[in-house]
């Protein structure tokens, strides 16, 4: 047999140790309870999907899919996002459900990595999809909920870069219809130098060139929308801008305007977006911590006409952007003499009554002479509220677990007692 690998793991995956898990679950809990307060219901879909289901939805991701072959020779993939699987469910199992539907998820996503670049191959995403509305209030709700979820998680400073896919497409169509693909590629690569060089070589009128060259600088607060309006004449582009203005008007009601940065060059890897699109950035993370947008045609590919809008938060990136809060001690430790049958019997009863009061109790049996050493050693860990030997724990009455013993802001059943 081959000697098992111990330290090595495939590139891009990681282990989460108990402290990290506790913190991750806490952050996830804050986000999902926020989403649930807005009426979103959690959904779970399988990690494995048919390639034919997922494959078409993304240009960029093609070479980053984990592919497997099943017994029939069909290609399966590990899901590279949650939006497409949810679209599949909405068009099939949920097809009788009236719209709008509000769904949320906490799931692992898989994307193969080209090189080690701070991007994981398996990562956690929490997100929502609002399905069945093509009105600006839906776009605004999604952006506002993204902001509220992040604030709830403890993030204080961030920027939401908002773009408009329909505007960008019709703008490029109007100015340089034969070159839209290449132009879009340059924007996806964030290559403004290449953009400028390429535009200057195009056989198009000077007016059009000027508009194209001005696009990367069309960034800032909402007044850039009015400037963009003067640059286009086609109806689709103008309508897209008016729609975006309405979304921003509604967002003012949510009081999150200060986080918003309009940037018409915003494009995301997936090609299913059809309208408003956004990414959230926060220091010190070099990559977006949240991304989303409107996709009106994706679900109809699965046979149900349903415009939709949603977002996903990259949990690990968000956690990197958050100040790690001090996790409080939450467990009692009873140490007993393992050779003393009376103590063994008693510790089982005693621990049980503490646990029934909602406490976390761990018991450790050691030989009599090691009891003190064990207590001293375990006291060093930040996990324990108290570390007691038989003389103490046998005389204690159970504490009713209270808020101060669990994580801050963590929802607990009332009093924790049964």
């Amino acid at each position, binding site marked *: 047999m081959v000697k098992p690998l111990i330290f090595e793991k495939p590139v891009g995956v990681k282990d989460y140790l108990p402290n990290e898990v506790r913190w991750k679950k806490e952050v996830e809990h804050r986000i999902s309870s926020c989403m649930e307060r807005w009426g979103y219901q959690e959904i779970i879909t399988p990690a494995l999907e048919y390639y034919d289901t997922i494959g078409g939805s993304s240009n960029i991701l093609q070479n980053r899919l984990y592919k497997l072959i099943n017994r029939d020779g069909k290609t399966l993939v590990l899901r590279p996002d949650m939006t497409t699987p949810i679209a599949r469910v909405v068009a099939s199992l949920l097809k009788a459900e009236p719209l709008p539907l509000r769904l949320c998820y906490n799931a692992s996503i898989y994307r193969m990595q080209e090189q080690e670049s701070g991007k994981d191959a398996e990562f956690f995403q929490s997100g929502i999809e609002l399905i069945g509305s093509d009105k600006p209030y839906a776009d605004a709700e999604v952006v506002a909920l993204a902001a509220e979820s992040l604030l709830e998680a403890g993030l204080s400073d961030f920027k939401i870069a908002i773009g408009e896919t329909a505007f960008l497409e019709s703008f490029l169509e109007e100015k340089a219809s034969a070159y839209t693909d290449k132009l879009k590629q340059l924007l996806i690569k*964030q290559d403004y130098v290449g953009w400028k060089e390429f535009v200057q070589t195009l056989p198009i009128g000077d007016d059009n060139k000027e508009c194209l060259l001005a696009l990367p600088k069309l960034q800032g607060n909402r007044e850039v929308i009015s400037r963009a309006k003067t640059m286009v004449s086609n109806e689709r582009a103008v309508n897209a801008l008016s729609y975006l203005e309405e979304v921003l008007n509604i967002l003012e009601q949510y009081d999150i305007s200060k986080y918003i940065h309009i940037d018409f060059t915003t494009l995301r890897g997936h090609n299913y977006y059809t309208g408003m699109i956004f990414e959230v950035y926060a220091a010190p993370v070099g990559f977006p911590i949240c991304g989303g947008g409107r996709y009106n045609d994706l679900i109809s590919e699965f046979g149900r006409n349903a415009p939709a809008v949603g977002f996903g938060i990259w949990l690990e990136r968000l956690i990197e952007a958050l100040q790690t809060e001090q996790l409080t001690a939450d467990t009692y430790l009873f140490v007993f003499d393992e050779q003393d049958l009376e103590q063994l019997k008693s510790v089982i009863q005693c621990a049980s009554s503490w646990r029934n009061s909602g406490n976390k109790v761990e018991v450790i049996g050691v030989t009599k002479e090691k009891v003190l050493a064990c207590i001293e050693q375990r006291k060093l860990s930040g996990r324990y509220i108290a570390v007691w030997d038989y003389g103490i724990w046998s005389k204690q009455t159970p504490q009713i677990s209270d808020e101060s013993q669990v994580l801050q802001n963590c929802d607990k059943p009332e009093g924790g007692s049964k």
Partner: protein
Amino acid sequence: MKEKLIVALPKGRIMDEAIEMLRQAGFTLPQNDELSRKLIIEDEFSQMTFILAKPSDVPIYVEYGAADLGVVGKDVLLEENRDVYELLDLQIGACRLSIAGIAGTDKSSTRIVPRIATKFSRVASDFFRRQGKQVEIIKLNGSIEIAPLIGLADCIVDIVSTGRTLKENGLVELEQIMPITSRLIANRMSYRMKHVDITNIVDKLENVIKN
């Protein structure tokens, strides 16, 4: 307190030109002899920190957000293929990426699949693939010119500025792949979070380039 902007500059070929350009744009940087000893330079006046890094590391510092901005050659940028904004062609450090070989030979050598030695393995293999040519790329880390001289490779793909190094080693430039200049790059997060500051710097540098 306003947060400082961190700019990664490449040590070596481009550094002097880059620093001269930054001075013209109004940033206060110490004299060159002082620079050669330092890795980190603070400019209190403009609230900026400059770090001096190996050129191929500049895109990495910027991609991870350890630096907000960076100055780096297009050659390195293409080779590293990092997820960063390419904001401005600084038009300094001008040179070209070329194929070179021993004078008097053809680049389609006696080998059926010619061997190409280069530091730029990604760029070189992309180039030959686009040309529909099968080649074997040999990645070297320096003194590329030796490879054809001792028979390790048939040709090299490398940066050529004056052509002197090639000439001294009996090599000739066979084909130009692309012209190269240095670029200003930005981290994705920084470009959003510090947009006003970064736009200011871009405007200042653009003015220097125009004049």
